[in-house]
């Protein structure tokens, strides 16, 4: 059976890792939502140069591994004189990477709102921004919530990659414990449980939100 002494003897490291994973996830979640929305706006806005920037961003960052983005920020940027700790580099990399996916989810949601809604709003004299804010985004959000939830869950799990830059999160602490005690399997199960503590409520919250939004229509 599961070796619970591994958990109790190293509880401090597990808690430390859990705390760091939670903070990284939270920061990257907020950051990637803001950045992702901005990139989505770039992609949708009726301004060609912004479209190009948005498209380039999305196609670049969603098509390279997170690991490489992370490593570049951690050991590449110092060459240019910008140095981030593993924790900071990890938060930034997760934000940049996830934002590309969030931008696509939001864009898809906005495009799924019927063109007639824009026409009705614009023909009544509302500006593009007002139309987005009052008419399109409130309708798009219902469509966007489920894929957005998926991205947030992926973000939490992807944070395990940060172990390679010694960010001090769950996976890193787990690696340290398992490499010292050699009971890798049990340690990884406990790590999985700690991830579940974050992801299950998140998953549940997203489902709730989806249902309550569906009801409001």
């Amino acid at each position, binding site marked *: 059976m599961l070796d619970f002494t591994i958990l109790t003897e190293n509880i401090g490291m597990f808690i430390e890792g859990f705390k760091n994973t939670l903070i990284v996830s939270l920061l990257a979640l907020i950051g990637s939502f803001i950045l992702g929305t901005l990139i989505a706006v770039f992609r949708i806005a009726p301004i060609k140069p912004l479209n190009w920037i948005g498209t380039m961003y999305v196609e670049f960052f969603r098509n390279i591994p997170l690991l490489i983005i992370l490593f570049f920020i951690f*050991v590449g940027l110092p060459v240019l004189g910008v140095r981030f700790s593993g924790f900071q580099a990890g938060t930034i990399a997760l934000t940049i990477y996830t934002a590309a996916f969030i931008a696509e989810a939001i864009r898809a949601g906005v495009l799924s709102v019927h063109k007639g809604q824009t026409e009705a709003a614009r023909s009544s004299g509302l500006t593009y921004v007002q139309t987005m804010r009052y008419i399109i985004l409130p309708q798009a959000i219902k469509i966007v919530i489920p894929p957005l939830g998926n991205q947030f869950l992926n973000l939490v799990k992807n944070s395990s990659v940060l*172990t390679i830059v010694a960010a001090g999160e769950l996976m890193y602490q787990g*690696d340290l414990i398992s490499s010292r005690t*050699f009971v890798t399997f*049990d340690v990884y*199960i406990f790590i999985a449980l700690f991830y579940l503590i974050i992801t*299950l409520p998140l998953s*549940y919250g997203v489902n709730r939100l989806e249902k309550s939004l569906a009801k409001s229509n």
Partner: protein
Amino acid sequence: MFKNRKFLMFMLFAALSVLVLAACGGDDKGTKDKDSKGGKSTSALEAIKANDKIVWGVKNDTKLFGLKNPSTGEIEGFDVDIAKEITKIILGDETKVEFKEVTSKTRIPMLNNGDIDAIIATMTISEERRKEVDFTDVYFEAGQSLLVKKGSKIKSIDDIDSSTKVIAVKGSTSAINIREKAPKAQVLEFENYAEAFTALKAGQGDVLTTDDSILYGMASEDNSFELVGGKFTEEPYGIAMKKGNDDFVKAVNDALAELKSNGKYDEIHDKWIEK
């Protein structure tokens, strides 16, 4: 209410699946124990001789000891040459070897589940590890040291204080040692030596610590780095086998003694270490 109950069921299901997984893990261990018990009737050495091959776990990222040559795809180094010579003595032919690439993290699990017969991968003999594996006699005397950028204000282990970031490799004894010798230091542990050295070069830490044997390899690659402070630990490298394989351990020890007496050991040592 209904929704809450559904959520509860969901959590329960999740918890259950984890326990089932855990139980499977337990079973796994059980079968392994049975295996090793069964192994006593036909000894490990006999099994190896019957197989006519020794599978060695070696490093693939450690300069001078076990490093993959990108042009040939072969792993080369001190550990590899020693393994070949031991195989030659036991099986009569140095080509009857197979090398599997291991890391500090994977080597013991791989040994215990039978993927490899022995580990010769810059592995320090320690009491904690003795609980998991059996070691041969020492085949290399290394010692932990420090690698810094030339001109660094760190000249020895005594210069390491709470503002110092020390880079080490996950699962290495050096990571544990440095916490004992310099308890105030902030230790950052990386996946392997390549990443650790890259982090040092990027200035993500002030000093990299591990066995001097490995640090010499790094310093020879980039001469803006140097070793400082000498050895502050004894790191006797041993070859590790699965517990209870006494005859195999003895055979390897005999082979090691032979290599040392016939000069072959010094030849290999000079080829790699004392350039």
